[in-house]
């Protein structure tokens, strides 16, 4: 499946996902699950990798981005475009499959596909926003935070380790902690972690592999201490 999430801190957002894709042939850790839309906004996908990547690529390539037309693009405009693109890409894939005599229903849980748009709405509300779309209806939902797909272990950790006053630096460590702990159990989550931050001063910034590895190394003591406390209280 995957793990994808958007976390909110006092000074920005942290977006994260793994890179594993699972198919009938096996798994591969080659999937790109999120892209930068513009300076302040990123988009993630979870579920069906082929459909998801196609949809987020279409969104990023849309002619509203402002890079080609040199105009300010509102967060709401990106969201409205996403409303159309995500559902259309998913339904196009379903229709193509049916043409190849594969009878698929959009409600089939094996075809679950979702998207998270996270960023700063610089031009209208001046707020950080997190939006979710999910098959089969792709009804847009605004959320405070989202943990999606193979989410239950991360939700448990989030419930116990997160608080509203955390800043982006702390959230980065939590993001890596959640990804590593989920990978440990869930075979459909793994591969290089993909993490980005969205802040006022720097906009959307993807963390490098070295930065992520440094965070994993920094978290080694935390992994051990978490295990120790659970053993102490429950073992």
């Amino acid at each position, binding site marked *: 499946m995957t793990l994808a999430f958007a976390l909110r801190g006092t000074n920005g957002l942290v977006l994260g996902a793994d890179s594993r894709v699972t198919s009938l042939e096996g798994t591969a850790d080659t999937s790109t699950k999120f892209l930068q839309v513009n300076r302040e906004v990123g988009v993630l996908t979870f579920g069906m990798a082929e459909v998801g990547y196609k949809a987020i690529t279409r969104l990023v390539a849309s002619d509203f981005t402002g890079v080609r037309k040199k105009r300010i693009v509102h967060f709401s405009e990106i969201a409205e475009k996403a409303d159309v693109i995500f559902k259309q890409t998913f339904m196009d894939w379903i229709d193509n499959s049916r043409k190849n005599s594969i009878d698929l229903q959009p409600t089939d849980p094996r075809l679950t596909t979702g998207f998270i748009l996270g960023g700063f709405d610089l031009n209208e509300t001046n707020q950080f926003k997190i939006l979710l779309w999910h098959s089969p209806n792709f009804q847009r939902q605004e959320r405070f935070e989202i943990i999606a797909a193979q989410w239950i272990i991360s939700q448990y950790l989030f419930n116990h380790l997160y608080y509203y006053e955390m800043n982006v630096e702390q959230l980065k460590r*939590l993001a890596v902690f959640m990804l590593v702990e989920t990978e440990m159990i869930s075979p459909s989550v793994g591969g290089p972690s993909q993490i980005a931050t969205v802040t006022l001063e720097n906009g959307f910034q993807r963390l490098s592999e070295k930065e992520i590895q440094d965070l994993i190394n920094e978290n080694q003591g935390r992994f051990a201490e978490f295990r120790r406390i659970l053993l102490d209280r429950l073992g």
Partner: protein
Amino acid sequence: MTISFVGYEADFNERPFYSLMFDGQKINDLVYPAENKVLFSINNDLWAYLTSKVYSNHMSLEKAVNLMGYITAQYSKIFSLGKYVNLITISKDGLNYLDIERIKNIMSNAEEVDVYICKYFCDFFMTKWCK
């Protein structure tokens, strides 16, 4: 030798849900011994995660019951499951439904563990965290 049985069954319609304990088997492969029925599981990742950290075959039935109570409480919170919980053990003494008072104590302990974890790790991701 005591055999403890770890498993999970959930019902979304506000009816009691059952936590069973069985040693060493995946939840989805479990068979309810009395009725020969396959147990349904929402998602066993969290069960697998917490038992990987804490559970061992050498654990006493008492500790395994407390662990299962804690895991049950987490599922209940995350999925907003049924109000009532049953905990059942199987040992060489047979199948045993825990009484309501014992279950209340186990769930109360689970809540205390949760509060302790939240307090202990309240600064877990600060730069200078070191215990």
